[in-house]
């Protein structure tokens, strides 16, 4: 039986979410609250089914794909249907070594996020939005048609906008709008770039695979579309992705969005949505305009370095736990740009693995922040000390997450950072001082924040007044399960990174060879 699994992964959660939203939208107040539990269960079952599906795909039970042998620009599970015939727009899906880890990660995070935010209020609306977000994200990763890619790219904004707006913190109104407008602005510029490119092509196509073939054919004997044009288009496309990533100086939407977003929103935002930017860079501008990348290599490196250093330094000054974690995301995303700019297969693989590892670790950080807020009614570092005594589970999770983010060996983040350092040394030599320095800064702010939350000391040892003297509870069982799962995967991919690193490595090597770049 020939089932189009990838389209199923995209369409199923979106349709389910629309169905659930419409089903409960006519109900008000009390009647609606009764639907929270069944809707949540439905969302969990659907997302678990999706996770099962991608895992079986990976294990070869479905499709029997040799994942570590997928060369650049070949795709598995490829399916194509006509969508808008008159414009040559198709619904084309497929996965390769670049996109599959992201698809798997999305399906992994969806059930974990649902579990971690099990008791979110107005669940009858919240969980369907989570499903819609997941479907749209997978749509971005599997789309092989430029139009489809853009549609899903924008579609991810809508559920996230509502999640921030409805379940967010005090300044959610400002944050939600800022988030939407920043991303939208960048992506319309990207859209104009895509369309300009479309009309400059010899054979006009929206199909990314054909585009890459066409571009590389021309790039082999010269510069596709001419260097000047290639540079302008590269900038226009990169702008869209850099804002999403986000890289300095376009990162200012991220701390606002993160701090105001509900825990589940932050987990998905940091876990997968930021990676859309990095994914898009690899998929479009880098694959299409390698000459422009070579031209702008140093600038990309500088943007990455500024994000890395600036993000880390700003972290040092934060007193808000969630804001600190948000800026640490900016810092880590800078690493991806450094990996790209190293122009080494190893550096690219490091960037890809960074996307993946950060996708597992950062949701854990935000889950910890969410639990902290939930139980101590505050996000201020130092507002509550002695967590190890009151909430040992939370303290342990926090320490684990912080250490993973710091790059402790045997945890997933370490693998990516080590690979990056090696590649960066090869490419830029003594510039390595800066990322090296950042490691020290990172250790500083993480240790500082742990010291002020986990351990006792000072007057803030007592639980905050908003608890009215009640004993401080430890985290809920659902939160425990989610954090355990995330921790388990962090260890798994720290010890056995090759599970996904193999296919990433294959992708980067063949991509570099295909594009005629770097030291391949």
């Amino acid at each position, binding site marked *: 039986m020939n089932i189009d699994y990838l389209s199923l992964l995209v369409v199923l959660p979106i349709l389910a979410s629309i169905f659930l939203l419409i089903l409960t939208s006519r109900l008000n107040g009390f009647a609606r609250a009764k639907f929270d539990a069944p809707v949540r269960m439905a969302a969990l079952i659907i997302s678990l089914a999706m996770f099962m599906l991608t895992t079986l795909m990976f294990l070869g039970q479905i499709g029997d794909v040799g994942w570590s042998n997928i060369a650049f620009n070949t795709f598995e599970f490829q399916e194509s249907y006509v969508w808008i015939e008159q414009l040559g727009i198709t619904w084309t899906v497929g996965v390769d070594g670049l996109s599959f880890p992201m698809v798997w990660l999305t399906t992994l995070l969806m059930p974990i996020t649902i579990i971690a935010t099990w008791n979110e209020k107005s669940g009858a609306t919240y969980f369907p939005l989570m499903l819609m977000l997941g479907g749209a994200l997978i749509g971005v990763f599997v789309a092989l048609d430029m139009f489809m890619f853009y549609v899903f790219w924008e579609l991810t904004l809508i559920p996230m906008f509502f999640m921030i707006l409805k379940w967010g913190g005090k300044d959610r109104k400002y944050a939600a709008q800022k988030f939407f407008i920043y991303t*939208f602005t960048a992506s319309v510029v990207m859209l104009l770039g895509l369309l300009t490119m479309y009309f*400059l092509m010899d054979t006009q196509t929206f199909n990314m695979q054909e585009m890459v073939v066409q571009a590389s054919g021309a790039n082999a004997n010269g510069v596709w579309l*001419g260097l*000047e044009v290639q540079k302008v288009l590269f900038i226009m496309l990169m702008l869209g992705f850099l804002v999403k990533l986000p890289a300095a100086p376009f990162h200012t939407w991220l701390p606002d969005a993160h701090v105001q977003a509900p825990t589940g929103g932050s987990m998905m935002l940091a876990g997968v949505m930021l990676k859309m930017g990095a994914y898009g860079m690899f998929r479009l501008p880098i694959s299409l305009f390698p000459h422009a990348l070579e031209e702008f290599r140093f600038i990309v490196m500088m943007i990455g370095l500024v994000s890395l250093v600036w993000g880390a330094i700003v972290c040092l000054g934060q007193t808000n736990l969630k804001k600190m974690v948000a800026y640490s995301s900016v810092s880590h995303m800078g690493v991806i740009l450094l990996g790209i700019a190293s122009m080494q297969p190893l550096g690219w693989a490091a960037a890809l693995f960074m996307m993946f590892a950060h996708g597992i670790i950062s949701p854990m950080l935000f889950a910890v922040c969410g639990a902290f807020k939930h139980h101590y009614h505050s996000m201020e570092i130092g507002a509550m000390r002695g967590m190890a005594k009151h909430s040992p589970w939370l303290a342990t999770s926090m320490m684990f997450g912080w250490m993973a983010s710091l790059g402790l060996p045997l945890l997933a983040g370490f693998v990516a950072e080590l690979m990056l350092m090696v590649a960066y040394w090869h490419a830029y030599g003594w510039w390595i001082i800066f990322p090296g320095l950042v490691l020290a800064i990172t250790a500083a702010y993480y240790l500082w924040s742990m010291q002020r939350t986990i351990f006792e000391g000072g007057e803030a040892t007592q639980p905050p007044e908003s608890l009215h003297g009640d004993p401080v509870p430890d985290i809920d069982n659902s939160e425990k399960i989610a954090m355990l799962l995330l921790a388990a995967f962090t260890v798994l991919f720290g010890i056995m990174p090759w599970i996904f690193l193999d296919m990433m490595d294959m992708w980067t090597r063949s991509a570099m060879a295909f594009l005629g770049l770097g030291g391949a």
Partner: protein
Amino acid sequence: MSAQNGFNSDMFEALAPELTLFVGLLLIMIVPNLGNGTFRIPGTSIRLPWFFGGTRYKAVASPRLPGLLAVLTMAVALFQVICYLLDASAADGKVISSENGIEIFKVNMFSRIFEAIFFAALLLAAIASLDRLPTGSQKSDDIDVLFNNRRQADFYILMLTSALGMSVVALAQDMFVLFVGLELASFSTYVLVAFHKETRAGSEGGAKYFIVGSVASAVGLYGLSMLYLWAGSLQFDVLAAKWAADGATSLSMMALGFVLVGFAFKISAAPFHFAAPDAYSGANSPVAGVLATASKAMGMLGLMRVLLLITIPEMDAEGSAIWIGLLGVLAAVTMTWGNIAALGSDNPKRMLAYSSVAHAGYMLAALTAIGAWNWGLVDNAGDAMDVVVAALIFHMFVLVFFKLGAFLILGVLEMEGGASRLSSLAGLGKREPLLAIAMFLFMISLAGVPPMAGFLSKLLVIMGIVEVATGTGSLSSIGDAHWVWWLALLMVINSAISMFYYLRVGVVMYFHEPEEGRKGPLASGASIRIAIALCAIGTVAFGLVGGELIELCRDAAESLR
């Protein structure tokens, strides 16, 4: 293409939708007046039943009857137009001429698809008006006045006459006929805007709209007289031939400029847009929606006819149309002005009016690109024009759904007592989740977020501009592209700016607490909700599967040439 002289059965067949409107018009005038009135033969005491006046029959005294008749008429006319569109091909066309061979009307896909836009907008507005109340807060005795049968009849008669006027504009092959149709439609809309004369906003908006509109019409008429002086005829093909032979002269240029003013007012392009926000906020919402969709499409139609049929350069010649610079500036100013003004308006209707100005700017940008169509692409000159015109038609077609839909949502709020502040929308997400979702869909569609129809239309417009600008496809730098490319860039930047005020509506609906005295679900108005549902379905459906409509628009665009 067959020419037809004089009146005969063929003509009736070709003009079936217009005749339907005409019959409907007569019915609305006659049916509500039927009664048991009698006529006394003079000098005798014999009274003959005369059926007019007296006590009206129960069946025809219903205040809803004129509305139902109008909806029925419009639905039949729309059905006829759609049947024609599905049946016809781009090469079809039927010319209706006078006895001495002067072309008056031409029925082809291009004119018919515009009629479909007009009728769809008016039909939705008529459905929505079936059980609506006036703008502003009204005392209950005023409501009786407004629900009075005769006054309802006036409202729908004006709707039908504006439909008739618009279809005359769509069909016209002669500038003068076009002008007559334009005035018929304009006068109907002037009165419709001022229809709620009891409210201050209604009469103010109506008066402003009337004064500015008639000045624009007068200038246009003056331009027409100069065109006649120049060419000796107002036929499109005669004018086009004369333009091709003589090129631009100062007289013809000036005449053309004056004519354009008339149309620019209709599409509310800057700097002729000043009356629009007042008119929209004074009129009741369905009427404002008609102004923003059908009336605007009519102005755009006029612009296309004049700019594309008369003054476009020869297809195989290099170079661009003479008006390209002027129109480009106008487009840039219009879209930017509209968006910036919309940012600062707290009245949602004024906001929508300015967003309508911005959309006029986008459409003008696309027209500007057509002016550059010969630039570097002699091998496929004409194709680009088809693409851009098709994009414009598609844009105006889908605009009916989300622009009118947004106005209709405000219309629901008006029933509760006004929608003149953004805060009237507050809490809609809790009070009426489905209406709030629909409004949000309309807003993001206006902003051009996929997968809504507004995205597809904006995509098509930008694609048209970029296709023209990139020409034959070999550029050494972006600076070598035609400058209309920068209009596309301005357009996407403007889209981003517009996101601010569209999103604000969503934020207000979901974030703010309802205003004092507004609680719970809104008054039910089944008909307006049906119209909103139709709009929402259209907005999503044409965004997801707009292929067939694009095909239709392309055929229509092809039949313009």
